[in-house]
């Protein structure tokens, strides 16, 4: 569902551009809104959310899609935690559909999906592993890297039980905006994937904006 935001970027309390292949880590407080902006188009933003005070409680893809009875995320979707609490709600979406079944790329899944010799290509899971090891104060490890949201990614499921990766339906300037219902740690990998159409074979920067 396409729904525009009334928030003005000039009033944002935080703005940061995240190049492809980098991670983004920030606490967004309950009541704040966070926008992920696809600056140049067709860029996948692989995103995980944690309870900022207890990262064992975290975004749960399966609980989220089951609670809303639909496998796609868009405006109105409430993002559920592993403890079945609402973490955030998608309040605006100019893209219309986001994936949460396709997971993130990893060095190891690159070997199976594309070729064994692709194992040294940069991948989202490596960005997250760097994020948690560079921030030991979070107390997080690989155990915390769970099933994520792929903002701006298009992974249609068919009635016959098929699943495909289609060209992105995002474009330059499209965004998704979420309002936090609890204090959340946002961990994004701006996807470096070069082997499939999720980034149009051309990974580009995203911008993250926060409003109080």
């Amino acid at each position: 569902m396409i729904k525009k935001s009334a928030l003005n970027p000039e009033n944002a309390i935080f703005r940061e551009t995240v190049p492809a292949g980098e991670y983004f880590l920030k606490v967004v407080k309950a009541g704040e809104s966070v926008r992920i902006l696809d600056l140049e188009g067709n860029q996948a933003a692989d995103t995980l959310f944690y309870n900022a005070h207890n990262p064992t409680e975290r975004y749960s893809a399966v609980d989220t899609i089951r609670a809303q009875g639909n496998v796609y995320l868009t405006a109105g979707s409430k993002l559920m935690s592993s403890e079945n609490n609402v973490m955030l709600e998608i309040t605006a979406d100019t893209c219309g559909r986001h994936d949460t079944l396709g997971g993130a790329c990893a060095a190891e899944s690159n070997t199976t999906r594309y070729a064994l010799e692709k194992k040294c290509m940069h991948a989202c899971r490596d960005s997250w592993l760097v994020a948690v090891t560079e921030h030991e104060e979070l107390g997080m490890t690989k155990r915390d890297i769970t099933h994520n949201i792929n903002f701006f990614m298009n992974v249609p499921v068919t009635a016959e039980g098929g699943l495909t990766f289609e060209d992105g339906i995002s474009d330059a300037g499209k965004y998704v905006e979420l309002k936090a219902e609890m204090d959340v740690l946002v961990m994004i990998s701006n996807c470096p994937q070069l082997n499939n159409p999720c980034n149009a074979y051309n990974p580009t920067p995203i911008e993250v904006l926060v409003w109080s």
Partner: protein
Amino acid sequence: MLETTVPLYDDLLPGGAHWSFVMRKDHVLRLIDETGHANIGMLMYNPENPLERYNMPDTLKNQHTFKLTKGHVLLSDMGRVFASIVRDDLGWHDTVSGTCNAKLVEQRWGKKTYQDAYNHCHRNGFSSFLNELAKYGLGKKDLTANLNWFSKVKTDNGGNMAYVSDHSHAGATVDLRFEMDTIVVLHTCPHPLNTALDYPSNPLRYQFFKAQPVASADPCKISSPEATRAFANTALYHTMQP
């Protein structure tokens, strides 16, 4: 697929229960829906390093599928094959719906504690998984998207999910051939989208067999280039093992 037809072990797990064990490489775990309408929640871990675990997204996207059936492989997050589905009587098993929790069970079927009903209490999948995971030093951080054997959840073109009741039947069988040593954690608690009036309590018969050696043209191994590469990763993992 089986080296012998007599199981090495045969057991019946009651409905609304949980259990776990280690499957060894080159053995088959047979799951039988004993009385119909079973749901088996399942998670998998590498006993040598439990940070390696069953990965729903990798399993689905590598095989371009939303459902699981014969010919598919169950992948770890390290690009290897825990198990191959070498037999399936149903054609569709769910792995995207998660598991029921205490709140959901209480809302749908009422609370029934151990004090109320002893071992016929209403257990839930979330607590059942945690109970078994703790036996291996694992916990909430290790919970991932689970398998729901014998259950079907389909979608329409808009992505709306629908639970298919009456999908399974008495005697329906799934054979999983393990390609690695694997901690198997399972429960027989209801599927989280099951809306049956009474708490669904359906037993699982499960059996262990020795598997026949995996042929070079094994149907699961050659089912897709992705599966073939996952088998290559698994073979590499075992290269230096006795």
